[in-house]
């Protein structure tokens, strides 16, 4: 087994970040200059597409190339109980055996959005020496957008047999994917799906990076070399130019989000419940209209 002390420290920091514990802020402030060395690969796609299985393959492959790999596997929190069963790790035995640090993350009801919190989770893995971090998220609209906010390279996983859903999703997929993987190519319909995706890419707006469409069978480890090579190509493309601007834009967006939240929180505290209550009473009694009440409260 690996020396667990640095792992324990990193694992605890990850928990503080997730719990929005003030100790996370102090720890990140003290170590900020040592973070930022990780390249983030987002992996998204519908539930059951084989994302975890694929991340396992890619993580093992990357570790064999000399990378120190970390994995953040995000699954949804139950809106009813606030709990979660996190099952991605189940598929990541290979990576676990290679000493890859894997952390299961529940979406919770993060105030700052998944992006801000997950970004700090990446930073915590960087402190552990990870230079490559895979972030697996379930592709369900919002989640897709967020992973793009976070990732330097976004991999979209699709599978044959989902029928019309894929049709409907295609536009979105093409916009966010730097690499489109058709997994479960051992199943019928994979060739056709790959063909469809490819023609959709070719018919779309020409871009300076055209997302390759590749077929893989994660469960057998087939096509992983080619998928990894495509990731490396995209990284090279990004590092030759767009990456710096991209990261700046993302950092601005994150700061904006968090600033908004903090300003909002601070202001709400200053205004206080009492003022809010008396404003509500006045509005209800028709002694004030809501628009003037809001103006008065805000100024």
């Amino acid at each position, binding site marked *: 087994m690996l020396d*667990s002390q640095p792992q324990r420290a990193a694992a605890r920091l990850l928990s503080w970040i997730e719990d*929005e514990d003030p100790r996370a802020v102090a720890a990140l402030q003290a170590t900020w200059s040592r973070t930022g060395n990780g390249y983030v690969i987002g992996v998204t796609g519908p539930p059951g597409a084989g994302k975890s299985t694929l991340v396992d393959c890619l993580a093992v492959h990357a570790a064999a190339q000399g990378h120190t790999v970390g994995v953040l596997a995000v699954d949804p929190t139950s809106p009813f109980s606030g*709990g979660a069963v996190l099952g991605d*790790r189940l598929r990541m035995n290979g990576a676990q055996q290679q000493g890859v640090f894997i*952390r299961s993350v529940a979406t919770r009801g993060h105030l700052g959005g998944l992006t801000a919190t997950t970004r700090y989770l990446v930073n915590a893995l960087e402190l552990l020496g990870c230079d490559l971090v895979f972030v697996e998220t379930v592709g369900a609209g919002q989640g897709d957008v967020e992973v793009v906010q976070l990732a330097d390279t976004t991999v979209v996983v699709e599978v044959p047999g989902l029928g019309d859903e894929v049709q409907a999703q295609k536009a979105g997929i093409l916009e966010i994917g730097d690499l489109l993987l058709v997994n479960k190519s051992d199943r019928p319909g994979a060739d056709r799906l790959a063909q469809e995706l490819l023609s959709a890419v070719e018919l779309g707006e020409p871009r300076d990076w055209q997302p390759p469409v590749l077929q893989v069978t994660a469960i057998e480890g087939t096509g992983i070399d080619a998928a990894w090579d495509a990731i490396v190509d995209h990284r090279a493309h990004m590092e030759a130019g767009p990456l710096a601007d991209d990261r700046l834009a993302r950092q601005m967006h994150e700061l904006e989000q968090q600033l908004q939240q903090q300003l909002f929180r601070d202001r709400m505290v200053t205004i206080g419940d009492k003022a809010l209550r008396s404003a509500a009473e006045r509005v209800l009694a028709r002694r004030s209209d809501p628009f003037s009440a809001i103006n008065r409260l805000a100024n």
Partner: protein
Amino acid sequence: MGGKIRVLIAKPGLDGHDRGAKVIARALRDAGMEVIYTGLRQSPEDIVSAAIQEDVQFIGLSILSGAHGHIFPRVLELLKEQGASDIKLIAGGIIPDDEIPKWKEMGVTGIFGPGSSTVDIVDFIRAQSGA
């Protein structure tokens, strides 16, 4: 604020009886906890290293094969070696009643056999976590 209770549920060895583990995983989720389900065929080393990475407060082992006799001591030993004895070990499945005092003395915090109520298990975990 306040940390979430996180629990790793694992099935060590070749034991394929996974109903109980799944029942427990769902019950803990429904009680608002985060459950990391690692599935079948986990070695004690896998379990302890996963527990450390996941920063769980509890490792829950489900063993119906009779293999608990060597798995409990090994997991406890690894936790100690890794300076992680604050992670509490709980277990369920087929564990003979007359052995339970022995295992508790050795450091297994709680043992729940067939027919245990999931409400009791949830309450026990909450009490043990200090939440």
